[in-house]
């Protein structure tokens, strides 16, 4: 089995050079703005904007496409459910009524979800996670939360490796996942062992941190420097989303 958890170098791109604080602030504001869109046209433009940012990010397709697919899976059900659940004008396909309003609303949800997904991937893909989290700390996110997120990310790899070892050990003793009582019991025991090891690991990590003077305060070597281009990129993205919101709320409503 190949584990999905792998550290990945950040490809050089204009978005990778964007100061993580400005990028995080702009992306969060853009996400809130896009989430507030009601109509299909602005949502579609937001999606196009998301794709443009993805292109600029130069993220490898092998990394990008599976993740975009996950966002698609999350948003697509609305497109298939709303046309059959909302009333109003529409078409009759045999005994089934397809609502025009539902179809448009479903498409708008899909566009909004995918646009937000694109922004999230840009944020995660164009800077190492610890830079983004440190930027969040500089933007006043509590240090303890940042530390927790960093530790969770770091130890996800360690636990994934332990899970892989457990799985190999089970397979070497002839275990195959089957929908039987024995199969469920074995998986339950393996999960339990992983949780116990995780708890044990957490205690050891906490001890190691205390031994090096950790008192709950987050410190980092990462330094940020704002350039004019960072502020221009921030202003451009926020202005684009504000324009979409105004179009959605003032023109189309």
């Amino acid at each position, binding site marked *: 089995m190949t584990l999905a958890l792998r550290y990945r170098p950040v490809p050089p791109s204009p978005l990778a050079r964007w100061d993580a604080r400005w990028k995080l602030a702009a992306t969060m504001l853009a996400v809130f703005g896009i989430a507030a869109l009601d109509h299909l046209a602005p949502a579609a433009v937001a999606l196009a904007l998301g794709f443009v940012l993805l292109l600029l990010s130069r993220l490898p397709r092998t990394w990008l496409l599976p993740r975009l697919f996950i966002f698609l899976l999350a948003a697509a059900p609305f497109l298939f459910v709303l046309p059959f659940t909302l009333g109003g004008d529409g078409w009759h396909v045999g005994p089934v009524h397809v609502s025009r309003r539902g179809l448009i609303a479903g498409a708008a949800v899909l566009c909004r979800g995918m646009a937000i997904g694109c922004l999230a991937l840009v944020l995660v893909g164009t800077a190492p996670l610890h830079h983004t989290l440190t930027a969040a700390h500089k933007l006043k996110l509590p240090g303890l939360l940042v530390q927790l997120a960093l530790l969770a990310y770091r130890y996800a790899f360690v636990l994934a490796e332990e899970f892989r070892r457990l799985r190999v050990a089970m397979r070497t003793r002839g275990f195959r996942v089957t929908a039987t009582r024995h199969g469920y019991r074995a998986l339950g025991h393996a999960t339990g062992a992983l949780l116990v090891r995780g708890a044990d690991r957490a205690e050891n990590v906490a001890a*190691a941190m205390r031994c090096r003077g950790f008192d709950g305060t987050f410190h980092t070597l990462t330094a940020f420097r704002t350039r004019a281009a960072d502020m221009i990129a921030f202003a451009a993205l926020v202005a684009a989303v504000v324009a979409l919101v105004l179009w959605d709320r003032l023109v189309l409503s």
Partner: protein
Amino acid sequence: MTQPALRVSSLAHRYSDGRVALEGVSFAVEPGECVAIVGPNGAGKTTLFMRLCGVLSGAPGQASVCGLDPAVAASRKKLPHVVGVVFQNPDDQLFSPTVEEDVAFGPLNTGATVEEAKARVVEALNCVGLPGAGDRVPFQLSGGEKRRAALAGVLAMHPAVLLLDEPSMFLDPRGRRELIATVRALPGTKLIATHDLDLVLDLCPRTLVLDAGHLAADGPTEKLLADIELMERHGLEVPYRLRG
């Protein structure tokens, strides 16, 4: 008369489930000494380290590290400045996203500026033979590199006393040789808990034998490790180098 770097007097430790991990352990380590602690699994070696660095609490007056009592809250806050612990499993210790951030973790916690911390990172990584590894991700280091990076994280704090728990565990022969050379070159007082008796012969002129929470022997390494009866009584073996 100089104060011992480490002083342990009738130290006892009992876990919350009632299990006695240490009982009546007493010894002293002079500044600059390199002392090994050997003993079978469950002898109490790691528990002793955890008491010395203040992670486990206990009764005051049973231990002192550079004059600080780890059982006293006010002293415990100062302990990271004087005592460094390298844990058995380096994955427990390397929790930062990059080696540089991890090595700088201790200095930044103890009040160093970013510039000072960066200088200490370079110094510590050079000291353990990992120059230029600062940008690397701890998860992707080899076992030997992880061990050395963990050691660098402790050395960056300039501790007067270094506690090394099973330092050669998980290392291949080359990694082990490199570690021995690195530890030998380190200044300060060193206490090494290990099953690797050849490493003990290479590094430590003095050895303590701990078994079932009791100090069974304290003396010159070659004399103790060559004592077949003592070794067998405490679940150990005479190293090949000392066998007739």
